[in-house]
């Protein structure tokens, strides 16, 4: 057959994306693809440009060069609200709740993207809250939530927009080990579905994550960014054994030394 083994068109595809802030080249010539239905992680040391890359994909920043394609369309420089409409929703590393509003109202704003009627949006908010474990907090002001609660809210609000691609920016940062344990199955269920939580799955996820336990556990594919450039890609096991990756985190020459010590 002619098309056997042909790779499906990626849902998201960046080619040669670059942006500089003054003299700082925050993202340089980055090309990556995310296949539909997958859970991909983007890792890298602090300041590598991960969040900047997210901002470029989602339209919060416009690249100096390169293109972003999403779901078959060139969306380079398209404003974020149109990207969300097209099916790409991002969350924020520093959680951004609508503090004066309740959890239910917060999630409903997301649901309103596809649902004009108020009652239906509020109902959708409630059912999503139940799926991510926010049901007991529905009527609390978002400003009163703990960090873990806010992270879930951030996730719920984004899910409520019924995205095709969810960009998760460190949803696990600041959580304690127990909270991380609780969150990992939720993220997995968003992609692969899980009957007990009621999440249907089918959402493609690209996540920035520092918690390696989660990356190893969840991601099928990992991209590694350091100093604005992609330095490695592969399965979690592959990239964590990559010399370049180890050195990006621990410093030049450390990969060899670690191997020496292990021997």
């Amino acid at each position: 057959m002619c098309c056997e083994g042909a790779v499906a068109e990626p849902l998201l595809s960046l080619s040669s994306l670059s942006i500089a802030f003054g003299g700082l080249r925050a993202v340089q010539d980055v090309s990556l693809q995310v296949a539909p239905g997958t859970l991909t992680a983007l890792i890298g040391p602090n300041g590598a440009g991960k969040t900047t890359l997210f901002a470029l994909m989602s339209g919060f920043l416009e690249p100096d060069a390169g293109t972003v394609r999403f779901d078959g369309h060139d969306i380079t420089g398209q404003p974020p609200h149109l990207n969300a409409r097209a099916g790409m929703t991002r969350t924020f590393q520093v959680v951004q709740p609508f503090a004066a509003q309740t959890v239910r109202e917060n999630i409903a704003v997301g649901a309103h993207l596809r649902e004009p009627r108020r009652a239906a949006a509020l109902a959708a908010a409630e059912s999503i809250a139940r799926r991510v474990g926010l049901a007991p907090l529905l009527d609390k002001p978002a400003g009163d939530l703990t960090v873990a609660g806010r992270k879930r809210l951030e996730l719920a609000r984004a899910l409520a927009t019924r995205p095709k691609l969810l960009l998760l920016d460190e949803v696990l940062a600041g959580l304690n080990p127990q909270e991380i344990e609780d969150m990992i199955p939720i993220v997995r269920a968003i992609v692969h579905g899980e009957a007990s939580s009621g999440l249907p799955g089918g959402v493609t996820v690209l996540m920035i994550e520092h918690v390696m336990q989660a990356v190893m556990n969840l991601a099928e594919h990992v991209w590694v960014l350091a100093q604005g450039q992609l330095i490695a890609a592969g399965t979690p096991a592959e990239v964590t054994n990559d010399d370049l990756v180890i050195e990006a985190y621990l410093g030049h020459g450390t990969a060899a030394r670690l191997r020496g010590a292990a021997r």
Partner: protein
Amino acid sequence: MKDLAAITAFAAAVGGLTLTLDSGVWLTFIMMALYASLLAQSWNMLGGYGGQFSFGHALFFGTGAYVQAIAQSTLGWNAWLAFLGAVAAATCVAAFVGALTFRYGLKGSYFALVTLAFAEVFRILAVSVDFTGGGVGLMLPLRESFANMQFASRRGYIGLVLGFVVAAMLVTSWLRHSRFGAQLQAVRDNEDAARAIGVDPWSVKLGAITLSAAFMGAGGAFYVQVFQYIDPGLAFGPVSSVEALVAAIVGGMGTLWGPVLGAAVLHLLGEFTRNLFGQLPGLNMIVYGSVLVLIVMFVPRGLSGAGRSLRDVLRGRRG
């Protein structure tokens, strides 16, 4: 539905009070308090629910007032038709100013300053062009009849402005229970988060400023019908801008009843000071300013949120 019942009760109470009271002073008080409520409600739609603090709402007030006056006196339109024109004109000016300022992402004090500047530009224009009557202003002939939107009794004007106030309440209630309102409040609370989940801040804010301006324009038109006179200072000067924002902030921004409560309380205070100190011009503005400072310092949620602010203080939290 709860809102609707409360609004109906409010309208019935004010209507009943108006019919039973016979004192001209109190009828005038009710009329002016409702008029101030209307301005405050207008400001609240954009400032309270949208978080865009305008210092120049007089721009829409004055536009409404002048269109109302010019259409009747110069063009000879029917007063009600002129009123529609006044509201439409205020809305158009708002669409223009809003499109421009929100397009360039002006927020906070920048937005406040630009609205202030636009109001001032219009004031200077109103002084310099002919069809506004220049600095002398415009007089309307007094022809008291329903068709002329002029009434021999205060009760007629109260009915008129009560209608506007109720309409503004219904719109505010709609803001609290609709997609547009939810998106507007999302933009107020966190614009970036709202954009990320598909809200277009530009169109939402533009919707809010035009809605707000429609009611401010109605306020200006009402002013002309009551006093049969308008000049550039009254129309575009800071008085109506300040009245609108102070009453809304004192009463409670982003609430249904705050603007009405704030307007009533401020006008009561104004009456008392007038009784105590006589007719010193500008005295009510001094009172407004002092009340505003006290409210912002001690009851940041405004009078309608005073209960919650007090609870927070008792619990030892910051308001």
